[in-house]
């Protein structure tokens, strides 16, 4: 524990840091114990820091969930908090939720109301379009091409090229794919169910 004490009190380790070329395949300037201590200390520090962050995030999630319940947002909040599984037994629930609704503030699976004039697509082709947009979203955010909003590019999805451009990014993202505007939730990237039914919304004609 000498090394830890030295670190905590002075911030400096006691040994010098001179390179010794004659000590090949041996610990260079640290004793075995000190090198081991540093290694373990470092790993523990990283885990401690991120574990504290983890606990804080859990607390934050709990506070916000409690707050939304206390504010009477149970029905929408629960829909937002409860994940929608893509397993087979949940397909009937998805089917009911995906009945097209074009107006009003009907809650969507995520608890987010559909924008006016938007409905849920049933066409598998639109699912593919949504997947293309999701790929574009990934490239917009992360790719070296760094596409700007509105800038068109060509993307291949499963061997088929598509003309795509990203229109807006947010909880609901919008893209123009092959001349057609579609929307999708980023958190639901191509999360279509087993029947190919899309559960992303799209603008109705």
């Amino acid at each position: 524990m000498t090394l830890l004490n030295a670190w905590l009190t002075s911030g400096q380790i006691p040994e010098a840091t001179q390179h010794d070329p004659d000590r090949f395949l041996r610990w260079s300037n640290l004793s075995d114990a000190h090198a081991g201590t540093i290694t373990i200390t470092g790993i523990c520090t990283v885990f401690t820091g991120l574990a504290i962050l983890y606990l804080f995030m859990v607390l934050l999630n709990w506070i916000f969930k409690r707050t939304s319940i206390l504010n009477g947002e149970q029905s929408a909040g629960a829909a937002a908090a409860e994940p929608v599984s893509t397993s087979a037994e949940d397909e009937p629930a998805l089917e009911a939720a995906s009945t097209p609704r074009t107006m009003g503030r009907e809650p969507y699976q995520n608890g987010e109301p559909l924008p006016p004039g938007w409905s849920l697509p049933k066409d598998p082709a639109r699912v593919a379009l949504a997947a293309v947009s999701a790929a574009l979203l990934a490239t917009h955010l992360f790719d070296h091409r760094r596409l700007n909003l509105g800038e068109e590019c060509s993307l291949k999805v499963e061997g088929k090229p598509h003309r795509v451009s990203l229109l807006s990014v947010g909880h609901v993202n919008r893209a123009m794919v092959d001349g057609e505007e579609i929307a999708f939730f980023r958190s639901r990237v191509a999360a279509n169910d087993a029947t190919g039914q899309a559960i992303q919304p799209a603008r109705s004609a």
Partner: protein
Amino acid sequence: MDLVLKYINNTGFGSAFTIGHLVMLLVGCVFLYLGIRKKFEPLLLVPIGIGILLGNIPMAHGMRISIYEENSVLNILYFGIKYGVYPPLIFLGIGAMTDFSTLLSRPILVLLGAAAQVGIFITFAGALLLAFPANEAASIGIIGGADGPTAIFISSMLAPHLLGPIAIAAYSYMALVPVIQPPIMKLLTTRKERLIRMREPRDVSQRMRIIFPVAGLIISLFVAPGALPLLGMFFAGNLLKECGVTNRLAQTARTAFVDTVTILIGLTVGASTQADVFLTKQSVLIFALGAISFACATAGGVLFAKTLNLFLKDKINPLIGAAGVSAVPDSARVVQHVGREDDPDNHLLMHAMGPNVAGVIGSAIAAGVFYALFR
């Protein structure tokens, strides 16, 4: 005639030319080829390749042109590397690009970011075993964090004479993430595990996304104050993005600002990588240790995810553990591709972004630990 001879001697064909210059010029051309033709991280490899060419043109000393000559243009730009200025600025831009909502919706993923950092410390121990002094071993170990700015920051502080090979190794391995990670991921997981579909991340409110960078900054810097330049700027950039009232600043930070600093980092790191430092046995060892570091980091994240699944009811796809390596977002994209090989409808990209951004924090904390111990 003397004047003509003097002039010829001052050109690249003069007495300053060595075989080392030729080799380094070829290395620069290889980097340009990988970046332009193969599109391996071109935003990094192209400026570095140009920098290598700039820094390895043979010339006589005293002309105030070389990067190591006082007050030359390259030397002035090198200030940002030498004094660790550029990496925190890069982190400001990265923070303005980062979205913590996936992490916030499933906090357990943050521990995968921690697990992947074991590669740093395993490599640190390995470098000590190979007779590198502690400060150099720490700089080499940080390559395993797969974070170029962090590697440059720590090397410039602890082992500036190794900055060139360490930076080149770090950025090279970042570009090779799609090559290095998939075999390790497939080796350590079964097909059944790779088919695990994770539940969709839930929506995260803006208020949470504002609170998190503030709290994250305070918590992580209390644990590792040495990481303040990096994590402070990282969370600052993220707050600019999430608060909603500084969109112009966030937009600038994640576009022109980070691109400008990226160019300067690439050019100056490349130019500082010269034959007498790069073409040595040490560099070969650094590259070898860097590969080990990456492999251990990938394995650490995947194995920790498998361990967590022993206790979790809602299983994690262990592939996303590999994204704990903080090569954002390449590791997450590799996870997406490997996951879709077994199940084309299993999109792991956004799930993998959780450990990916956690890994950025984890590698910066590790850097803070090394800085505190060996400065």
